[in-house]
């Protein structure tokens, strides 16, 4: 019992004896939720996390955070269609973060400074895993497996690694030196790279199984799809991808005055641009789908990266959207033109979308050649058993192939994958699945909830325009010079401060500053969750003010247990 003090004075801070925590009906918890950019990234990057490191001024830590998911940021920073940016919460506030530009800058910084992946040396009894195909899918799988402690043999049919990155993506988008540096660093993490070794020719799956505990198939889709118009194929017709690859490997291109490319993917657009750069005055693209733009439904957009389509148009490529080829106009043996017709994808019965051609909308386009760029399929050599007659493989989201224990697949070899980041993500997830398979451990737990704009308190942010990324003026562009310019590191740093830090503490001090009950404590050492704040539940009254004022949606109110 207390003893009276003269004049009933009290000692400082003695209110701490009075635990107001039991007034609480709900309690705040610090909870890392997912940023939408992370959820949207096919490669599994968490841009929020590396933007934070960069904003803190540590670009190497940012890069290390980044390559924990994606080993090739200098590449994806250039070629990825960056769905992270389309999903960025900031896009609903002012403009999305220039994530791809920052990713690229970090990748370039790593090359410049010769940063290495943080990888531990393999133990002598490391298990052996085979990876077939050294495109982005195979490279990613091999990298992650090595990081996870496996001894990887990487088999590649060609003499160089890189897959389509090397063989099909032109230098104006992906300079060869960047590609070379990224791949060289990756190959040197401690795997065995075996070029010019083709599955189905030099070895079989059974050979691999003999001395590997698991296999990842990342051979892509190498075979051009058959194409004709009512059975008619132009003379000299070659798949567009072959033309592109040939130009990339030996530098030769066909010379026409005018040409129409059929298809709306990256191959069509890149080939069109290459041809345009080579001096062909009239280059057309004929696509069932639409040119990307505001209000165009995602499923109706040309599959090529929007940015590339935009640039192609700037450069004078003529795109005929929503058009199909009705007929080839052949004069003698040569192509004289195509008859196009308006088309649209419409939802028919049972929700199936079909391309409908509208009679009476035919037009003639006079061109010297028609080049199909209508997609590839998997070359079945060596994979017959797995394909069982299908054009693609159908692994689950972890790359597992039903009925083939120990065999995993990802990248373009899978139906539905179409991008470098898909391939990298597939390779990463398959590596985790292989690890879990070999260790007989559980796969990583399910996803955290995603933070949306209304979970944030944007009062604490200022509108600030997106940092501009410069493009080479159209007149100065050619097939070799990189068109999109780098975001200088300093600009990248400024840009990183625009990040809302969705779902993750940004150490803004708001909760600590605004708790009326002094129930938020700051700590120098990191908490288990990686932040620097602790709720003192002895005193927190559960008013939820902190949760409401947390700018980044990192505080969640839970019913009191």
């Amino acid at each position, binding site marked *: 019992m*207390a003893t*009276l003090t*003269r*004049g*009933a*004075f*009290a*000692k*400082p801070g003695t209110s701490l004896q009075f635990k107001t925590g039991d007034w609480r009906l709900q309690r705040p918890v610090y909870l890392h939720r997912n940023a939408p950019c992370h959820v949207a990234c096919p490669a599994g990057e968490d841009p929020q996390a590396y933007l934070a490191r960069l904003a803190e001024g540590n670009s190497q830590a940012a890069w290390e955070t980044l390559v924990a998911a994606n080993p090739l940021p200098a590449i994806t920073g250039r070629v990825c269609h960056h769905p992270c940016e389309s999903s960025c919460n900031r896009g609903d506030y002012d403009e999305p973060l220039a994530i791809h530009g920052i990713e690229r800058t970090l990748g370039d910084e790593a090359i410049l400074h010769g940063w290495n992946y943080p990888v531990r040396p393999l133990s002598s009894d490391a298990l052996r895993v085979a990876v077939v195909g050294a495109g982005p899918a195979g490279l990613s799988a091999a990298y992650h497996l090595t990081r996870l402690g496996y001894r990887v043999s990487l088999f590649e049919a060609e003499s160089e690694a890189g897959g389509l990155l090397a063989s099909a993506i032109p230098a104006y988008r992906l300079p060869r030196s960047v590609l070379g540096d990224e791949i060289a660093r990756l190959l040197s993490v401690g795997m065995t790279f075996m070029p010019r070794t083709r599955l189905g020719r030099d070895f079989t799956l059974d050979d691999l199984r003999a001395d590997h505990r698991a296999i990842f198939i990342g051979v892509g889709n190498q075979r051009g799809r058959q194409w004709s118009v009512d059975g008619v194929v132009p003379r000299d017709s070659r798949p567009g991808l072959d033309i592109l690859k040939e130009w990339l490997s030996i530098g030769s291109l066909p010379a026409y005055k005018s040409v129409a490319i059929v298809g709306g993917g990256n191959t069509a657009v890149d080939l069109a641009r290459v041809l345009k750069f080579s001096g062909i005055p009239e280059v057309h693209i004929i696509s069932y789908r639409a040119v990307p733009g505001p209000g165009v439904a995602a499923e109706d957009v040309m599959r090529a990266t929007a940015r590339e389509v935009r640039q192609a148009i700037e450069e004078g490529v003529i795109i005929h959207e929503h058009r199909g080829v009705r007929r080839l106009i052949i004069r003698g043996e040569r192509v004289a033109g195509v008859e196009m017709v308006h088309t649209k994808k419409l939802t028919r019965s049972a929700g199936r979308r079909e391309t409908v051609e509208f009679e009476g909308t035919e037009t003639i386009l006079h061109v010297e050649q028609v080049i199909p760029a209508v997609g590839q399929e998997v070359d079945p050599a060596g994979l017959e058993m797995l394909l069982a007659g299908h054009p693609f493989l159908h692994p689950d989201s972890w790359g597992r192939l039903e009925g083939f224990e120990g065999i995993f697949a990802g990248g373009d070899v899978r139906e539905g994958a179409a991008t470098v980041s898909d391939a990298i993500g597939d390779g990463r997830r398959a590596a985790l699945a292989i690890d879990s398979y070999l260790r007989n451990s559980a796969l990583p737990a399910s996803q955290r909830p995603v933070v949306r704009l209304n979970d944030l308190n944007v009062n604490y942010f200022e509108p600030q325009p997106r940092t501009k990324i410069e493009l080479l003026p159209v007149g100065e562009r050619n097939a070799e010079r990189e068109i999109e310019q780098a975001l200088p590191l300093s600009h990248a740093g400024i840009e990183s401060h625009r990040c809302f830090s969705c779902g993750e503490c940004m150490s803004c001090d708001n909760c600590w500053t605004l708790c009326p009950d002094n129930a938020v404590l700051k700590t120098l050492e990191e908490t288990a969750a990686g932040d620097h704040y602790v709720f003192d539940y002895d005193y927190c009254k559960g008013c939820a003010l902190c949760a409401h004022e947390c700018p980044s949606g990192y505080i969640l109110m839970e019913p009191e247990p």
Partner: protein
Amino acid sequence: MAQQPLEGSQAIAQAVALCRPQVVAAYPITPQTHIVENLAKLIADGKLACELVSVESEFSAASVVLGAAAAGSRAYTATSSQGLLLMTEVLFNIAGLRVPLVLTCANRTVGAPVSLGNDHQDSMAVRDAGWVQLYCADNQEAIDTTIHAFRIAERCELPVMVCVDGFTLTHTLEPLEVPAQQQVDNFVGPYAFARTLKPTDPITLGTVLSHEFYPEVRHAHHRALLDAQEEIVAADREWHALTGRSTGGLLSIEGPPDAQTAILTIGSILGTLADAQAEYRDQAPAKLIKLRAFRPFPVDALKQACEGLRELVVVERAVSLGSGGIIAAEVRAALSEMSSPPRVHSYAIGLGGRDVPMNAYPKLVAAAQSESPPRFAIFDLQPAKLPAEDR
């Protein structure tokens, strides 16, 4: 020690100055005004190093000295009448906080009707505020009591109100002895309040207290006031040793030891009654009891003083309207503890500044012998002046 002619207010101001207050709050009200005016002049002349805060009300005056005392400075203010009542809320607060302060109340009645006249209605109204109340019979006592007050306040951690009759004392010029600075310094000592607010020991003063402790806090305060009796007596004793002057401690008795009648009173009418006592020594022999300390109320000293008395006339300068004599009521209660207490007669006199003449003395003594005395009466009432229905 040389005497010098001084006005009461001036004397009090000098006594205050000798105690070296660091903060004085000033607000004018008759008859107190001259005290703070004198202090202001002493400060202006550089004779007293002190912060003079010329406040905008007595309520603030009391508050200023409270703040100053809590912040570690000896502080002083003075007031009267309406001003004292305006302070009331703060007076209780100061005492409850157990903050040592000295306040001079230049006693004046309380309106309405408005009057500048002297009586004790003001200080009696705040008798339960928890302050020590000492009443002065003359201006020498006012000087000495003021000096005692600082020492008592600081030693007991209680505020002390020095009550001095307005005009009769404050405005009267007489030869007075003003002690030497060194004497006062030794007697009072430096100001040291145990609960001084300071960042190095950041305590909280003025808390909220529940009923769980309220009776105890009242007990402690009451006890402190009772204990202050010793300090009041000791101060007087020591001051006497230093100066040869005594103010009588809690109370003092004058007159024939064998007299069975006594008149008890408070404040400056003692002077008149003492003169009359001498004058009517044979016609109306009686003792005179000077009550100096009204709070704490000196029950034991009083009982002792009343030993052997048959009639005790309590003459006071205030009325508890609807009840009667304030001091008398307390005296009656105190003496009821005696085995054969005197009869207690209760009269108010000199209300609103009406002059108390010498001849009041024999009349009072005579009244004391009455067969059926009134329980209470206003002694100098002139009923003819009342409308019929109020007589």
